[in-house]
């Protein structure tokens, strides 16, 4: 009986929606928006994949160049320049032999561009890698475009999907009352709860089928179903999208249960959208900015300057510095002096340490601010879902932070490999090249992503539960059509 009733309502809804002009326009429009957003995201992934490929090819070319020159030297040729002599450890480990490391686009970048348009996704690692390396800019991009942000699926999901839900559901009960059909309906053995639930469930199926369908098509086209990793991310993506949409459906049901007019419902729901999606995230950020201002990066520049002045002063050898800046201009035959290389490394190391201190202070300041934002993000379902969507896509902060910390560790390995040789003035040969430390990015496991998503997802589910309960109680009180 119950399932039959629901089927009847669903069938009728289908007929009604099929006959409704507004929804006939709105729903396909949304599918167009989804598809457009997806095409956009996919273009971005292709761009990134191409860049990563070029970056990696650079490594091969550099290594081949070194191999060729080392072979030639072995056969008695002179190095192209004494200061670019690949046999020197600080040349092979320095800029000439620098190893480029790149982060592949997140598994679902096509769905959520996230921070990937802003944060650097490849670095050159050499013995000179230090904290300032991580200050470099990401991709070349018009700041205006960065400010506005991309039209990706995540944007459509966070901002526009709720509006679609509200447009489809704001008068789900009030409209029936206003057009007078509610009286006949409630004179049948159907409760308002079941009636509204069935009507909203139908709309939810349409909305989610569109949203998730387009997402899956996108993943399919970009070949993301390949390994087992993305599958978990896809599930998380779909779950976050579903729960977020359900939140707005629950809110719609609740507002409808209050028994006010359709226009009142519309105003209140749009107001709720504005507060939850626009105002609260802004308020939280403003509060975080005031309570825990982010320590400035400008300090880092001053610190770097002072540290290197300091280090250089200790060497107090102006000539050496001059030679270091422009040895080729002396015209003489500057041969390698191991002591000079060692001296230079000592100074570099001192600067690096100072930079790490400043950087650490900056990081902890940022963490404090984040902590505050994290605590209050529960107030806004938009913030919660944004976090989950970009995290699932692998374009959130954590994957970039993971990349950075692995690059940092790799730079450490690189230095440990070359610094002893620099200090000892050892000569490098082509045999060394295959034994150089290699960078292998260990991507997040599904467990990491799942663990991070647990809290926001549970919070969102609880929100849905609370609002849904409000709606349940409210609808229970709806008896008649008056």
């Amino acid at each position: 009986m119950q399932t039959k009733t629901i089927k009847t309502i669903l069938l009728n809804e289908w007929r009604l929606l099929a006959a409704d002009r507004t929804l006939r326009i709105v729903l396909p429009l949304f599918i167009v928006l989804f598809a457009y957003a997806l095409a956009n995201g996919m273009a971005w992934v292709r761009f990134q994949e191409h860049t990563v490929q070029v970056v990696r090819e650079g490594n091969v070319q550099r290594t081949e160049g070194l191999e060729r020159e080392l072979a030639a030297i072995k056969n008695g040729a002179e190095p192209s320049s004494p200061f670019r002599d690949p046999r020197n450890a600080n040349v092979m480990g320095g800029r000439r032999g620098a190893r480029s490391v790149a982060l592949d686009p997140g598994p679902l970048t096509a769905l959520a561009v996230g921070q990937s348009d802003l944060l650097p996704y490849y670095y050159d690692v050499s013995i000179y890698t230090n904290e300032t390396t991580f200050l470099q800019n990401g991709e070349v991009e018009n700041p205006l475009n960065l400010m506005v942000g991309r039209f990706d699926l995540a944007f459509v999901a966070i901002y526009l999907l709720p509006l679609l839900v509200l447009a489809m559901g704001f008068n789900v009960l009030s409209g029936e009352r206003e057009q007078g059909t509610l009286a006949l309906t409630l004179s049948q053995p159907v409760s308002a709860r079941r009636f509204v639930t069935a009507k909203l469930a139908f709309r939810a199926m349409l909305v989610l089928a569109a949203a998730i369908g387009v997402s899956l098509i996108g993943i399919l086209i970009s070949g993301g179903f390949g390994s087992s990793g993305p599958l978990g991310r896809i599930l998380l993506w779909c779950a976050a999208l579903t729960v977020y949409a359900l939140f707005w459906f629950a809110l719609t049901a609740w507002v409808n249960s209050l028994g006010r007019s359709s226009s009142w419902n519309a105003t209140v729901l749009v107001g709720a959208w504005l507060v939850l999606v626009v105002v609260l995230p802004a308020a939280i950020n403003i509060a975080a900015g005031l309570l825990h201002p982010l320590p400035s990066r400008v300090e880092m520049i001053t610190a770097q300057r002072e540290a290197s002045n300091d280090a250089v002063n200790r060497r107090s050898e102006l000539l050496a510095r001059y030679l270091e800046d422009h040895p080729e201009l002396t015209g003489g035959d500057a041969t390698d002096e191991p002591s000079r290389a060692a001296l230079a490394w000592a100074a570099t190391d001192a600067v690096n340490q100072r930079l790490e201190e400043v950087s650490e202070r900056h990081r902890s300041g940022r963490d404090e601010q984040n902590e505050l934002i994290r605590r209050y993000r529960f107030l806004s379902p938009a913030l919660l879902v944004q976090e989950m969507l970009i995290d699932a896509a692998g374009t959130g902060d954590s994957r970039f932070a993971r990349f950075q910390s692995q690059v940092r560790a790799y730079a450490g390995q690189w230095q440990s490999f070359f610094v002893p040789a620099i200090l000892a003035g050892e000569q490098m040969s082509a045999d060394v090249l295959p034994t150089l430390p290699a960078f292998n990015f260990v991507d997040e496991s599904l467990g990491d992503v799942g663990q991070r998503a647990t809290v926001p997802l549970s919070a969102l589910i609880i929100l849905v539960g609370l609002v849904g309960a409000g709606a349940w109680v409210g609808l229970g009180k709806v008896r008649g059509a008056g």
Partner: protein
Amino acid sequence: MESGQESRIENTSEVQTVDESETLADSAGAAVAPVLEARSLSKRYDEVDAVVGLDLRVGPSEIYCLLGPNGAGKTTTIHLFLGFLEPSSGSAHVMGLDVAEEPLKSKTHLAYVPEQVMLYRNLSGLENLAYFAALGGKESLPTDRLTEILGEAGLQADAVHSRVSAYSKGMRQKVGIAIAIAKEAGALLLDEPTSGLDPEASNEFSELLEQLKDRGVAVLMATHDLFRAKETGTRVGIMRHGRLVAEMTTDEIGHADLERIYLEHMHD
């Protein structure tokens, strides 16, 4: 009963007083249990008594007409039977089921035609009927049968497939009645069903009610129309300020009597 002018009831030969109505109702439905029954049913809105201590029984094959001016409590009574409102005290029963306790089950026995039958404008009359019939539990009525019912209710055959947005009030009313017929419910609640209908449509409607009565349906109809109440009804109750002030069987009185009694109750 509280004291007050409303409770003073004329004791004429033709008219049963409320005090005696119990016996009459009993005699009318002596053999069978009442389909619709109100027991000391009261509904109070903030400061206003909409229905006060209403006792009412409608048995099978009875057409009970509730007469009274606007605001007398007729519609409230119907809504109490439908469970649209929660009684302040007393109870409404359908086939012995307490409406407040078994809201959904009791509605399986009720068919309802509101004063304004409002339908889904984008669907045809047939589609509306199919939908509401299905909601009422008749999920698998074939289209032929549904069309037949619409014909029974008086809807022209050529209108069956056109959208309701093109229907007149009378046509919508007919679909409403078709919905009630299709449900094959034991009780039919009608709220001013003939208001706004032309005389011919009203006559058709009366004939339809006769048919339903013959099938054993219990009909409770709220109306302003004294003439039609006398013609169609088997019994008439007059309500004023939420109270049932008079009750009579239509066989025992003439049109003029009914009008006189009604006016007397309105003016004291």
